[in-house]
């Protein structure tokens, strides 16, 4: 016999892996009930659950952005000042003092075009990897799809990217750089950068909540990664036969891709990009799997 219960809300009807509908269970009290079960070995991604909680995702991102430059005098100007000051420092030390080659592009523009995707990557990575620990008070007190937390932590990286993009546009106009048709490929390289950052970030955040060592090691790893990426130097310094192997670092492809899309230098694709694409995809999918696999115990280990 069916119960005349109020319609379960969508977010309860579609739920994460630990819960499944109980229509075929003899003990079930109602076909629409959701069931809490012990640890499930192979989780689904749970897109519908995330979709049901999209407003929380929005509020968490909004909170991060709102609090970001809270109680500062310069406020949002910081998002402009940071890339500008880095461009100045790099231009002075590498461009002017060390006479670093820059494939014929004015050095400040050369470095900013790479800093942009790099900062997107670095902010996303540090944001997501610390997100679970800094939100553990939520994890131990309320249920929601845990993926919401690292996803919402990407907001800051994206916002800063948007602002820095304005600086880049201003500089492109200053140097009278013509706009090329391949500029349309920029979103794809952004996506590659985000997927890599999120992939590593999901691994790091899920590990970090259990072993805080990750949080200590990551800034160091990111620094190394920065030097392994052709931000301050052109990839033409590296022997051409190694370029494909350089694709092991997806950020190298992203940076090269950005320069190709903006200035038409290099090839912007080829073996290196294909290599990077698969590395990035692997990182992302394995990160997602590991995160979903361990998220049920986050509240116990936090």
């Amino acid at each position, binding site marked *: 016999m069916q119960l005349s219960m109020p319609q*379960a809300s969508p977010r309860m009807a579609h739920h994460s892996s630990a819960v499944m509908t109980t229509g075929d269970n003899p003990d079930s009290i109602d076909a629409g009930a959701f069931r809490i079960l012990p640890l499930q070995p192979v989780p689904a991604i749970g897109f519908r659950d995330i979709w049901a909680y999209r407003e929380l995702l*929005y509020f968490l991102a909004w909170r991060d952005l709102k609090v970001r430059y809270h109680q500062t005098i310069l406020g949002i100007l910081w998002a402009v000042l940071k890339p500008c000051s880095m461009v100045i420092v790099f231009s002075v030390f590498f461009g002017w003092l060390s006479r670093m080659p820059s494939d014929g592009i004015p050095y400040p523009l050369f470095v900013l075009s790479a800093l942009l995707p790099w900062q997107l990557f670095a902010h996303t990575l540090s944001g997501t990897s610390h997100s679970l620990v800094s939100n553990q008070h939520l994890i131990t007190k309320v249920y*929601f799809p845990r993926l919401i937390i690292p996803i919402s932590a990407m907001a800051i990286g994206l916002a800063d990217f948007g602002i820095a993009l304005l600086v880049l546009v201003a500089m492109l106009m200053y140097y009278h750089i013509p706009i090329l048709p391949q500029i349309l490929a920029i979103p794809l390289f952004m996506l590659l950068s985000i997927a890599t950052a999120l992939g590593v970030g999901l691994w790091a955040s899920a590990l970090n909540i259990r072993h805080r060592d990750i949080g200590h090691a990551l800034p160091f790893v990111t620094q190394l990664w920065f030097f392994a990426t052709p931000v301050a130097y052109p990839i033409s310094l590296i022997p051409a036969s190694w370029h494909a192997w350089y694709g092991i670092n997806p950020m190298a492809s992203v940076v090269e891709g950005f320069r190709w899309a903006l200035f038409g230098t290099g090839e912007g694709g080829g073996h290196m990009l294909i290599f990077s694409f698969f590395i990035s995809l692997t990182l992302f999918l394995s990160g997602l799997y590991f995160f979903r696999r361990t998220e049920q115990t986050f509240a116990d280990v936090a």
Partner: protein
Amino acid sequence: MSDVVIRAKNIGKQYALGDGQHWRRTVHAHLREAFASCRGAEETPVYETENKLIWALTGVSFDVRRGEVLGIIGRNGSGKSTLLKILSRITPPTTGWADLVGRVGSLLEVGTGFHPDLTGRDNIYMNGAVLGMTKREIDRQFDAIVAFSEIETFLDTPVKRYSSGMHMRLAFSVAAHLKADILLVDEVLAVGDAAFQQKCLSKMDDVSHEGRTVLLVSHNIASILNLCSTALLLDRGEVLAYGGVRNVVDHYLSGSSSVQGETQLYPQQEVLPSQELSLRAIRIRDSRDCVTGSIDVARGCTVEVDYVVHREIRGGQVSLELWNGEGVCVLCTTDLDSCPESRSMARLPGLYRASCRLEPTWFRAGRYWISLGASIPGVRVLDEAPHAISFDVVDTGSVEHKLAQGRRGIIAPTIKWNARSLSTVNS
């Protein structure tokens, strides 16, 4: 089939004791070993053994019908909060399952998701979203939430500038307006001033009258009796009693739970040969001389301590400390207080029974602990029994104590007042 909206079957939860970081210690052990072998020294390898596992809950089963308000009671560590966390989907059970029908709202804490830098207004949205409300729902209830919290003027001030009372009122107001078919509530009423608490209690009462199902975890027996129709008594992770609230509360108070009114402190053989005095037992007797773990706030009780003197001692004293549920020491008293001249008196070997009366008007309702000690003051400690016993002082609703409950202070004595007229004013 009936109106069951929550069914829990055989729920168990296992936790690993320790910090769960045996890896780290293993790494340390290996490093130390490697270092020792470099120096050529012999060192016993230290390998971390498996973390010890404990069951926080075992075999918990129950059904809750729609509109029922189920109280969950039990001592600290009996698994109440773990049960609520499982039902809230924060942590998965180790065994068993639970079905829930309808939208679940869990209030394990008020103000979850509050950010100190955000304004009151922003935090209402933030907290609401964390509790699972949609923006539209919050918009609709916004005015009611603000009115309930009484903080209109500070709505655009960051909450870090709020007093703790305002902070808590705002947090509870959002929680109180959460629309859910099933509410899981953990101890949130234990905060705030008495007037606001009363307001919250009546709001909770409204909730249950609206046909919503509530699971309430509380130490406050008075509010359990007030709000709940049925109750579940947990003890060391197991269901000890389940049924009508009155019966379960009686069961809890009458000593079949761990609050037994008597604690045996030492088995005979554990006394060290050098020990001069050992504390043996402590018990609480009510006004009718029955051993009990719960005391009527209007009647008071007697504390009885058994101790054995093994060798003759001089200048010894037996003392007790009374601690309340917030961890505040209410008072400390010793058996020498009333007759200081006996300080020099010798205590000959033998079994002693000391008792003292605790006056009823001192107490506020709640859980109390007694720690025992025996010492020669300023010389040495003879024996100690921290947290030797706990007991509940229960508010039975006598008029004068109802009055006293709204006041501040860790004790609520009835003090005699006098007033006399000094002059008269001619109008």
